[in-house]
């Protein structure tokens, strides 16, 4: 009686299986190594002295800025997450009283690198934040800020002060001002904008190709003391005035 024979693979099928095994094994090793070498590093430091400003240039990282009231120093908490031991490059520079914190992750295929900043700043210290796709958040901050990001989201809550400028390419912008800022400028190319400010008279500049809604608490007046500039290329705009 003939024994059942296992069907033999063709040479091509054997080659494909071998290649798939090789590529699959390499991919698996890379993925395992990536998770095995994952690191998280948390660094906290303070910047003391008389400061004229703070610049955070963090590319892919997220930034959170919290108002510290009358506390004199800037407290920075930096969280670095990376794999394969390829951490971010960090630079710190002080020039004319302006502290610049810059971080850059290496460009890597398969591998992770991210930096997040949590900064506590005293009132009236001007802050500049520049990111590529990192999100930017401000809480309880009083002063002036200049924010620029590409696809990151900007969220400003309970802010109060003089000049706030937020620019994004596609990221959405949401602001909630505790007091009427002297000048609030929110611009985006394609993102949406939501601005909530105390009700009253504003020098108003609102424009978009998308939908726009201006709440009844806001009235436009050219001689108003506060300027509200809300501009989007195609995104929706909502401006609300709180009573």
């Amino acid at each position, binding site marked *: 009686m003939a024994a059942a024979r296992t069907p033999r693979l*063709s*040479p*091509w099928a054997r*080659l*494909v299986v*071998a*290649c*798939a095994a*090789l*590529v699959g094994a*390499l991919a698996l090793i*890379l993925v395992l*190594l*990536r998770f095995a*070498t994952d690191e998280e590093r948390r660094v906290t430091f303070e910047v003391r002295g008389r400061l004229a400003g703070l610049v955070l240039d963090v590319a892919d990282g997220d930034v959170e800025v919290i108002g510290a009231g009358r506390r004199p120093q800037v407290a920075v908490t930096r969280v670095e997450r990376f794999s*394969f*031991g*390829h951490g971010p490059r960090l630079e710190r520079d002080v020039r004319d009283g302006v502290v610049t914190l810059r971080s850059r992750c*290496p*460009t*890597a*295929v*398969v*591998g992770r690198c991210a930096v997040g900043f949590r900064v506590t700043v005293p009132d009236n210290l001007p802050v500049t934040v520049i990111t590529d796709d990192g999100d930017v958040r401000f809480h309880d901050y009083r002063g002036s800020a200049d924010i620029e990001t590409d696809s990151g989201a900007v969220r400003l809550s309970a802010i109060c002060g003089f000049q706030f400028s937020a620019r994004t390419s596609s990221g959405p912008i949401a602001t909630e001002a505790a007091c009427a800022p002297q000048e609030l400028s929110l611009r985006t190319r394609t993102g949406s904008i939501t601005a909530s400010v105390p009700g009253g008279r504003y020098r108003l500049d609102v424009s978009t190709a998308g939908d726009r809604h201006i709440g009844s608490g806001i009235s436009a007046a050219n001689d108003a003391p506060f300027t509200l500039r809300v501009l989007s290329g195609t995104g929706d705009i909502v401006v609300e005035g709180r009573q």
Partner: protein
Amino acid sequence: MIAELQLRKRVRSAVRALGYLALTTPLAMVSVVVLVVVLPLSVVALVTGSWLGTLRRTVMLGRAVMQRDRLLSNRLLETRLPPLPLPAPTPRSGNRWRRAAKLLGDVALRRNVLLLVAHPLIKIMLLVVGLVPVALMLTVAVLGLFGVAGIGSVEYVGPVPLGVPAGLALWALTVPVAVLAVAALDGLPWLGEPFARRLLSPHWHSGVSVRELLAESLGDRSVSIVYWLPERESFVDEAGHPAQLPGPEDGRTWTLVERDGRPVAAIIHDAALDASRELVQAAAAASSMAIDNERLKADLRARVEELRVSRLRIVEAADEARRRIERDLHDGAQQQLVALALELRLLRNRAAGHPELQADIDRLSERLSTALEELRELARGIHPSVLTDRGLGPAIDALVDRAPLPVDVEVEVQERLPPAIESAAYFTVAEGLTNVVKYAKAGSARVAVRREDGEIHVLVEDDGVGGVDIEAGSGLRGLQDRLAAVDGRMHIESGPEGTVLEARIPLEGGA
């Protein structure tokens, strides 16, 4: 070893698959657009019963797009996808709701809409499977170039800094990734064909013959099946007619279908399918039971056909015998009686001056004339020579001329027909008129013979008392048998307003 890999063939196949994806991806996008139009149109047609023509035309547009995809698939991927089902024409009769129900109930139309849904989804699957390995291959190759040439912004690949060694290693890795890319593209038909074939399979609608199933499975619309009848040791077609297997010069070939080791049928298909003979064998094996069932039906049809042909032969033989008797009577007894009548006339001339003898001769002549007329009538009843010589129209005119009541005649068939059909039509009129004269007590009658849809339609109607019963007399039963011998059928309606006798004789019935 390298030759066994058939690399050249596989790379060519992969390039063709890339071409297929490049050419048909826009078609899938068109399918999406068509679908976006078809779905609301279907709802509108369902709710309002209107826009049916637009709906069908849009579905036909989608079908044309998918047919193009199918053709490219069959050409570039060497699949054998069957054609898409053709939706029925837009219904013209009935109110709009009935027409909408008829159109939306069309299985072929619904399958086309289903295919419109599936078309982009299958395309996405093929794009992912086919292009992801290609993208990976290109990425690895380009990264290798960055490493070797020291260009680009990538600093690390995994844990390794991207320099010359890593670049060379990546180039080496490009080879196995390229093998996977070729395998993925080469395997696209293997992946996509079962999906497409399943969607195009005629199993979706019932009432499809085994031949149609095989035609769609093999992608050869000209497929036919002949069934082996072991008792006759010959093949017959679906209708039971004798069939021959094609020879090598016909451009067609055949594959034997066996069940339990005995031949049951042969699938006759395009010789080009020889390249995938195992496909035909697989289809034959899968459908052998159904084919065996069809074979039994074909056997039955062959027996019925044989019975029909033998009955036709009997009728034809009887007609031939009638014609011979009519000829014999015409050429024999009738000629002798005519000659006798002439001699009697000569004898009467010679008997001038013998009035008594002349009176006897006149009596004899009269009786002879009556006998001759009766003989002619007998010959006409057996088989009218005018039918044989001049055809149906003149023969029916002669019948009507002898009828003792007004008959309206309308014969639209002027050409000669096969003798069996002419005889069947003639005897239908003859039997009908005989019944009118004998039983109907009619004031008038009407005879019509016309050609309709490949049939001869014979009508004999009167305004008599009705009461015709086929079972009551042998005349109509005999006529029914005569018509059945040529696949004809008879219908009688008889009531107080009169009788209508209708017969329909297919023109192929006399073959």
